[in-house]
């Protein structure tokens, strides 16, 4: 016979005013197995908890019910108290008679509240009788982190984790880290030069001995769970031996072929063997294999001849490396929506219609024009430039529904850069709303207007066309209610920020969620903004949605601090609410395996003494199982059950109804 104690809380008057707690306790004492009951003013108070502990010891209770507030409030409190009194904490259950009774049934006669409290407590008692003592699951933690994506967010995360004394692997798919920020000229709101603040960080990441850089690499496969991930990384062939290359650049010098530079957004060309930009980290060139005639048809080879240390190997193959890590930070960033989608703006057809990112390159002192604003068609300095905001953003029909958040700010920045670089030039900006929420952001935009003379027009542009070597912009100024036409020399489109191509594939590999726009989902947008629902995987930066550099960096640091917190203990304890398979009855139909949203179920083979496989069984990986119970309902032979929510427990509660 179980020995159960029932403690009914009055919560001051919160419960007692509509529930007769004495009566509840009294009724409960009549049930078989209940050996102790009482009611008390504040169960969660120190005296209340003391009383609970005392009662457990004195009455040798093997189960405890506290009928009080929501378990979301004080379940932890009472389980801790029970544990202190020597009881298994999972033998303590809460009945919610406050949020579910006294606060929602205002009957002053206390009749309804009391009846319902009695029912609920009885159901919990029956359930408790079938509880089994459970132990928190302990998982060892591998104290090494993986950061995917070497933009500013990823670099920051890697640096902070290394700073905290843990090893980090930073995987970047391009030949250099730096991400989109490496392309920017000067950056709002402080207008410091992007390279000047980014390059030191990139170099630091390269030199820090706790950080292993895998550039030109991608994550292929992720297995395991928090504390114990196994990751396979494809290191794409650079055709250059990284360890021996001195970064002298002779090979690049001698390469006779040029192609469009993606880094410069096709504004200029680069060699077939190249580093994306001069400050690349690591400063090791890679051969663009599809464009190299040597690799394609064995013609050329000039670079290999030029290379002093002989580190070029045209036969080099991709390598797969396997790493074991305890936590993963995803910081894969964003890309821009293809402007060609907006035929009315002429991008791709009219040379002098460019994207905001291309403008960054024009304004950058390391860019193709050395920082002079010259239009692509004929290299002239444009005397009037029209900036069009919200291109593709806030456009449900042809673009994305959300606001890209940074383009109002960088457009204001562009007008400033332009007015500083081209004296007498006039900037026009077509906008719908100006979104400049942030410290000193509004002031920044006002400065562009009031000090640098940008002409802001509230309205969208309908179309852009070429006429006599100029670009005509036709739009509206809704404030004056007029149609507007501007003959300009150049047009800059503030293109929507969208998720990376392949973001969904990576998410599926990692088992993390993403939204309709393929941005990754945070656990909770306000309270757990850098965690995912998959324990041990964290997020940072624009892979979650548009944001600027300050925010991306803050998130990189936040993710790093989460990783360091995880690594601060050698083992992690987890709630023991996981599934278990009944090995006797499982008939290996794998219904559970396909149902489990976390891939927590594995196939286990049972072997006879000779080592022949005699049968298969489902096996739950407790580290991965999150305790949702989907598998339990899926299993037709009732061979899998969920600890803490077993069929037996649930039926007991139903039967006590």
């Amino acid at each position, binding site marked *: 016979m179980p020995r159960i104690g029932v403690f009914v809380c009055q919560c001051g008057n919160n419960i007692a005013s509509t529930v007769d707690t004495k009566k509840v306790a009294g009724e409960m004492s009549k049930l078989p197995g209940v050996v102790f009951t009482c009611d008390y003013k504040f169960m969660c108070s120190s005296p209340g908890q003391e009383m609970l502990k005392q009662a457990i010891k004195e009455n040798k209770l093997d189960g405890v019910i506290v009928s009080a507030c*929501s*378990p*979301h409030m004080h379940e932890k409190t009472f389980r801790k108290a029970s544990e202190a009194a020597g009881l298994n904490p999972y033998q303590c259950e809460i009945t*919610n008679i*406050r*949020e*579910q*009774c006294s*606060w*929602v*049934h*205002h*009957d002053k006669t206390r009749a*309804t*509240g009391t*009846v*319902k409290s009695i*029912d*609920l407590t009885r*159901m919990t008692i029956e359930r408790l009788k079938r509880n089994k003592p459970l132990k928190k699951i302990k998982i060892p933690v591998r104290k090494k982190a993986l950061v995917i994506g070497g933009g500013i967010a990823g670099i920051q995360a890697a640096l902070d984790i290394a700073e905290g004394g843990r090893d980090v692997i930073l995987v970047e798919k391009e030949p250099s880290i730096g991400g989109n920020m490496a392309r920017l000229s000067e950056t709002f709101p402080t207008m410091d030069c992007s390279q000047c603040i980014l390059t030191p960080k990139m170099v630091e990441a390269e030199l820090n001995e706790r950080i292993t850089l895998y550039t030109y690499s991608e994550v292929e496969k992720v297995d395991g769970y928090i504390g114990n991930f196994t990751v396979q990384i494809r290191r794409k062939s650079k055709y250059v031996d990284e360890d021996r290359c001195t970064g002298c650049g002779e090979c690049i010098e001698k390469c006779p072929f040029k192609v469009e530079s993606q880094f410069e957004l096709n504004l200029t060309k680069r060699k077939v063997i190249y580093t994306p930009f001069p400050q690349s980290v690591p400063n090791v060139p890679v051969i663009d294999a599809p464009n190299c005639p040597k690799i394609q048809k064995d013609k050329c080879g000039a670079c290999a001849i030029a290379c002093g240390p002989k580190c070029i190997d045209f036969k080099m193959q991709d390598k797969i490396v396997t790493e074991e890590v305890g936590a993963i930070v995803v910081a894969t960033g964003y890309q821009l929506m293809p402007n060609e989608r907006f035929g009315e703006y002429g991008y791709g057809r009219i040379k002098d219609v460019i994207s905001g990112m291309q403008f960054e390159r024009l304004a950058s002192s390391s860019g193709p024009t050395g920082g002079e604003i010259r239009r692509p068609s004929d290299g002239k300095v444009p005397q009037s430039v029209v900036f069009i905001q919200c291109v593709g953003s806030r456009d449900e029909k042809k673009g994305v529904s959300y606001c890209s958040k940074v383009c109002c700010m960088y457009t204001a920045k562009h007008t400033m850069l332009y007015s500083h670089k081209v004296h007498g030039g006039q900037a026009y900006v077509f906008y719908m709303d100006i979104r400049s929420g942030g410290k000193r952001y509004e002031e920044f935009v006002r400065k562009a207007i009031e000090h640098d003379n940008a002409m802001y027009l509230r309205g969208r542009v309908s179309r852009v066309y070429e006429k006599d070597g100029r670009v005509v912009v036709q739009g509206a100024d809704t404030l004056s209610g007029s149609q507007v036409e501007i003959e300009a020399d150049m047009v800059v489109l503030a293109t929507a920020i969208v998720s990376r191509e392949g973001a969904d594939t990576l998410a599926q590999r990692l088992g993390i*969620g993403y939204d309709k726009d393929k941005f990754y989902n945070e656990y909770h947008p306000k309270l757990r903004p850098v965690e995912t*629902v998959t324990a041990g995987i964290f997020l940072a930066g624009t892979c979650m949605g548009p944001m600027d550099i300050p925010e991306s960096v803050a998130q990189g640091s936040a993710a790093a601090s989460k990783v360091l917190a995880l690594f601060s203990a050698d083992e992690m304890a987890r709630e023991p*609410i996981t599934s278990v398979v009944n090995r006797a009855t499982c008939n290996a139909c794998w219904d559970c395996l396909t*149902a489990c*949203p*976390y891939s927590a179920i594995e196939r286990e083979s049972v072997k006879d003494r000779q080592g022949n496989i005699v049968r298969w069984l489902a096996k739950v990986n407790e580290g991965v199982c*999150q*305790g*949702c*119970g*989907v598998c*339990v*309902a*899926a299993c037709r032979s009732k061979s899998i059950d*969920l600890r803490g*929510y077993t*069929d037996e427990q*649930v*039926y007991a*509660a*139903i*039967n006590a*109804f």
Partner: protein
Amino acid sequence: MAFVCNWCTYAGADLAGTSRMEYRPNVRIIKLPCTGRIDPLFIIKAFENGADGVLVSGCHPGDCHYTTGNYHARRRWIGFKNLMEFVGIDMRRLHFSWVSASEAIKWVDLINNVTDEIKRLGPFMEYKGLKENRAEQRKG
């Protein structure tokens, strides 16, 4: 009887409590980690044990704490509805809904509406007898 998930609907009901909203007292909640945990037999058992109506509620599709548990639940219901009809349970006694942690008002409305509808239908007798019958059979 209401089967609700721990993360959304249970929290939604808590919020109704903390907001001191009032609703019909006839509901008895059983908390489960996820609607995906709900076995169709739970519902049949609930009817056997005298429930006049059953409500199942979890997170909104797409919001599931366990990523896709509620999709499983939803998929299961499709086949399950037929079964219920087959065994003679009036589908008006069985309600499915999504209530998020912030939708206290929805929870209150839901309970009120469901209770009222079930009251209109009167007590559910066909199943209540079953348990006793079986007990008697066993004895006899």
